[in-house]
């Protein structure tokens, strides 16, 4: 299969109308098929990265476990919108992954440069 750059855009909080686990699942499959995978978190999507989540309290599988093992899937690109974090009173220290903070202009350039953008 040809290798393309994929950006998975996450803009929603987990659990409520949550698609967090499914978006991550798709990204992991893309990576396992040798694609160049990028994950972007903006707006309420940054809540997906919050440390200390306990999905078991809602009887849900813990998708954050996979988030902490992205390196094993060769996913090195995790991008977070800095403004979204700040508006929610969060700092990078509150997150469960090492993510690169981007400002809006940089995030926009990233998006524009991808082969495929997937929203889930």
């Amino acid at each position, binding site marked *: 299969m040809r290798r393309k750059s994929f950006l998975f855009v996450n803009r*929603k*909080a*987990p*659990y*409520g*109308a949550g698609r967090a686990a499914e978006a991550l699942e798709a990204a992991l499959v893309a990576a396992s098929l040798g694609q160049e995978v990028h994950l972007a978190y903006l*707006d*309420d999507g940054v*809540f997906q990265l*919050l*440390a*200390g*989540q*306990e*999905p078991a*309290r*809602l009887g*849900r599988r813990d998708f954050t476990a996979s988030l902490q093992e992205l390196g094993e899937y060769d996913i090195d690109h995790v991008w977070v919108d800095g403004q979204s974090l700040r*508006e*929610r*009173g969060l700092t990078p220290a509150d997150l469960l992954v090492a993510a690169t903070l981007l400002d809006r202009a940089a995030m926009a350039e990233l998006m524009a440069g991808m082969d495929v953008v997937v929203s889930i």
Partner: protein
Amino acid sequence: MGPLHTVNKSPFAGPALDSCLGHLTEGAALLLIEDGVYAAVADSAAAAKLAMAAGRYAIYALGPDLAARGLGKASLLDGIMVIDYLGFVDLAVRHSTVQAWL
């Protein structure tokens, strides 16, 4: 007692919380559930509007929903009371109606 209002949306994702806060009446209470609990966190941009209401109305947040989202140990706004589902039932008993801000 007045109505119990429930808000299940993030304060950043839509106008449900704002709209609900604009319709609280004497004796009303607000319960944050599901993604609504993100409004309870002390430092967020949504805190200010909730803080105003917290002085006049009883405001609750559902503990299991906070914990699931990693907010179990977060510092919440002053005055917000954390309850479980039994507490939710109890609130529903003590208020005249329950209105969900879907």
